[in-house]
């Protein structure tokens, strides 16, 4: 389907580019938010990435999926902005490291909107590369090979980031829930 629209756009039907915006804007936004943690900056980056994708559409050879190619642009643009700003240091999650973390059951108690809030807040506490890898793997269901292709990182690096990201995410979520519980009490 993507290829059909690429041909249309390349043949001068610019309005057909809207198809890509509709299809990829939310995932591109999630990807950019993983890096930037700021919705206004992320929206700007996604906008810029769409324009770049349009300008360079002729150079897309179709060797990889359009989505992989496009997310690569989004990630490059996001890291460009990220490097311009000073990296926000992530709080080190150290407390209760040995404590059993049953965050899944705890979060199941919440309503959907609340769950969404806590999970996105926890993911915002992770370093850019960890949250990016987690979102691509679990949310966008990219394989490790595809993640390497999109990010340009090595397979071992992606695996390490995923392992670390999973642990940090659970710890961050646990901390958030604990703070919330304290507030309620």
């Amino acid at each position, binding site marked *: 389907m993507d290829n059909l629209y690429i041909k249309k756009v390349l043949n001068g039907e610019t309005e057909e580019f809207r198809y890509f915006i509709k299809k990829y804007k939310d995932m591109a936004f999630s990807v950019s938010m993983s890096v930037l943690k700021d919705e206004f900056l992320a929206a700007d980056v996604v906008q810029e990435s769409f324009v770049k994708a349009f300008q360079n559409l002729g150079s897309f050879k179709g060797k990889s999926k359009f989505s992989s190619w496009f997310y690569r642009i989004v990630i490059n643009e996001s890291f460009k902005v990220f490097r311009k700003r000073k990296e926000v240091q992530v709080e080190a999650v150290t407390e209760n490291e040995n404590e059993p*973390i049953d965050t899944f059951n705890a979060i199941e108690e919440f309503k959907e909107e609340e769950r969404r809030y806590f999970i996105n807040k926890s993911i915002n506490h992770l370093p850019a590369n960890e949250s990016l890898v987690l979102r691509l793997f679990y949310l966008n269901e990219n394989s490790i090979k595809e993640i390497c292709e999109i990010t340009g990182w090595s397979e071992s690096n992606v695996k390490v980031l995923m392992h670390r990201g999973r642990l940090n995410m659970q710890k961050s979520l646990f901390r958030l829930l604990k703070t919330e519980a304290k507030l309620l009490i």
Partner: protein
Amino acid sequence: MEEKEFKKLMEYSELKIEFPDFEDKVMENVNEAKVNKKSVSKNIRLAWFFFLIGLTLGLIATNFIENIKFDYFGEDSNLILLAVEVLIVLIITTQFDNLIRFTFKRKNRLE
């Protein structure tokens, strides 16, 4: 936490762009980029055209001046002509270099 449970949690991490006019804004920028692309290509073509016209006229003028003999404050006209020629060659090479750089830079960016 098990892999399945973690995946279930991560399903909630999808974010949506909350700006209602986002699509239209992007399309506006895309259309602007399309117009700019056309005008830059046109400008590059025009730059090459005028460069070649200037080069041809310059060659004709230099050839014409070469045949005129005159004294300028006691200096031989050939010396003045040489100085003018050196200046012209300098201008031509720098302009030619700029044109080539700009044309290929743009071509590479589009590829």
